[in-house]
């Protein structure tokens, strides 16, 4: 009944993606790269409280995760999804506000950085516990169906590490039982923090999990933007059209530390020579230039524009006031009369 796992030929399918789409995606990737470089340098400059976690090397996958979503869809991004968040409508200013501790960020100083959500654009605020957002997306989709909405889809990302949590298992399974239009995009960046694949799982290919849940499974080279767009876009389309849940597993390498505090010295040098260990932003840029979809001048122009945008977002947030303890109402509940007056 349900289709079994299939493997996309790694990058055999460029022709399927029109080059306008490719360029559109590339611009988001570039924005993400420039922006995250800025965040990393702010972190090194001691301007950020808490950690900075970036998606360097994962921009192609992440962009594809955001690009095919529409108003009414649900995105539950994780720590490496700046590209998906931006592509699906979170303004850079919300990010800088959160990272720089402005009270005007969507989390109001209560939660920070990668935990931010952006409900206005259908983006959930993650809790740290990996896998926990999957059933939440399922619940949103179930509710939408109960309310009679149509044509929506929900997408969650996960790392290969997060795929080993009980929450991920239960969430993936319940999505299939509820037959909701759900896409899970897993990036196997070969490490969970410092832990290599062989201490994370023992199957040959994580995409082999798909069949056991009744998902359609797809495997891609996460450094190949065209493959990402085609396969992730296709998965979103299949789910939206009423197909079974979709699992896309991308092979790639995290080209940064787990967070900016981490030098990632545990990554073996040989691994950096793998094809999937390349820099997707550089590869995409090269291909775009080579094919004359973009000329060097236009690219330079993009970089200038993006840098200006980024600088503006940073400067704006930096000028804004921080939250103030004395103005907090310290109330975790929306029903004020039910707040417990806890004996101190």
């Amino acid at each position: 009944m349900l289709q079994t796992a299939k493997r996309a030929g790694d990058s055999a399918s460029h022709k399927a993606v029109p080059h306008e789409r490719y360029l559109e995606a590339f611009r988001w990737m570039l924005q993400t790269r420039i922006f995250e470089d800025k965040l990393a340098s702010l972190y090194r400059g001691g301007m950020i409280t808490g950690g900075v976690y970036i998606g360097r090397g994962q921009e192609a996958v992440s962009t594809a995760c955001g690009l095919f979503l529409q108003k009414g869809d649900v995105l539950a991004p994780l720590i490496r999804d700046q590209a998906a968040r931006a592509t699906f409508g979170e303004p850079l200013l919300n990010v800088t506000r959160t990272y720089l501790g402005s009270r005007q960020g969507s989390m109001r100083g209560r939660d920070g950085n990668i935990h931010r959500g952006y409900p206005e654009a259908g983006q959930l605020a993650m809790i740290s516990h990996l896998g926990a957002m999957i059933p939440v997306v399922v619940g949103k989709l179930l509710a939408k169906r109960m309310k009679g909405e149509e044509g929506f889809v929900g997408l969650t990302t996960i790392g290969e590490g997060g795929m080993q949590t009980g929450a991920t298992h239960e969430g993936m399974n319940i999505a299939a039982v509820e037959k909701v239009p759900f896409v899970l995009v897993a990036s196997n960046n070969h490490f969970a923090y410092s832990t290599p694949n062989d201490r994370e799982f023992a199957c040959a290919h994580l995409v082999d999990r798909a069949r056991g849940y009744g998902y359609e499974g797809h495997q891609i080279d996460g450094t190949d933007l065209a493959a990402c767009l085609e396969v992730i876009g296709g998965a979103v389309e299949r789910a939206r059209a009423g197909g079974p849940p979709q699992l896309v597993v991308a092979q790639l390498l995290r080209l940064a530390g787990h967070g900016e505090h981490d030098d990632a010295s545990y990554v073996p040098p040989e691994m950096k020579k793998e094809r999937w260990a390349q820099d997707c932003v550089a590869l995409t840029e090269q291909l775009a230039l080579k094919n004359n979809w973009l000329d060097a001048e236009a690219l330079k122009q993009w970089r200038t524009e993006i840098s200006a945008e980024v600088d503006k977002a940073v400067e704006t947030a930096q000028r804004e006031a921080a939250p103030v303890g004395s103005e907090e109402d310290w109330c975790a509940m929306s029903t004020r009369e039910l707040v417990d007056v806890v004996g101190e």
Partner: protein
Amino acid sequence: MSITYLEAIREAQAHLLREDERVFIYGQDVSGKFGGAFKATKGLAAEFPGRVLNTPISEDAMVGTAIGAAMEGMRPIVEMQFADFSSVALNQILNNAGTQYWRTNIPCPITVRLPSGGTKGSGPFHSQSMEAIYSHYPGLVVVAPATVEDAYTMLIDAVAIDDPVIYCEHKYLYYHLKADALPKDRLPIGKARIVRPGRDLSIVTYSAMVHEALAVAKQFSADGIEIEVVDLRSVKPLDTDTVLASVARTGRLLCVGESFPWGGATAEIVARVATEGFHLLDAAPARINAKDTPIPYHPNLWSEHRPNAKSIAAKARQVLAE
């Protein structure tokens, strides 16, 4: 007509499904002709098609799904088969439901029904009372109805509340407790009730222990000692005012809980009275809880593990003697 505590829970859910299209029930075996391990949803699936849904054995995902649905405007009621199994959903309850509104400003109105408390022969994993764990963390309302009437109105109120509510229903009361009819009035969640007035000692308790306390009060009354029994109804928020007012009348406090002894509701009540009503106390306050071991399976052991009328009476005598 006569209605049990369990039937009141069923009726409340029928009422909610009828009156509010945002409500649905989500849990193991709640659907079909079966209607739940305890039959608390009996007949509801047929009456409300598509709104009483069986789930896989996946408590974490059940609550996670309910959270998502609640954020999207629904009013899910999650039935745990036994409170004890909510241990594997605890992360979603505490860290996701409990923090959601505070972090994002989006209300998360889920109700989690926990069939709680000990019954004969149920053993360590089908007898637990988990209110202390859920009350300790911020963001949740935790209720524990002790009467048929409260079982009914508090479940309806729980679902109406915009915040996550942990509804601890006591399995021992399911069949043991009967009322003549469904209640017309209600006391809102957050308010305690003086279920028996007295002047000599306040016993503050909740859930099944209310009835043990009442038995003790009745027994002492024969000797002219009048015990006031306060039914907390909700342990979070805890109605400190009513408790303090009672202690102001009696000067003596005994807190009774069926849960484990370290921390928990009895510690919280004693601590509140000691800190906020110290001068009201004419004698040292006291408390009595279950013993600090898992809950035994064998009835001979179980009946000594939990507080009961005998052990409560003994403790009450001590407090009165001081």
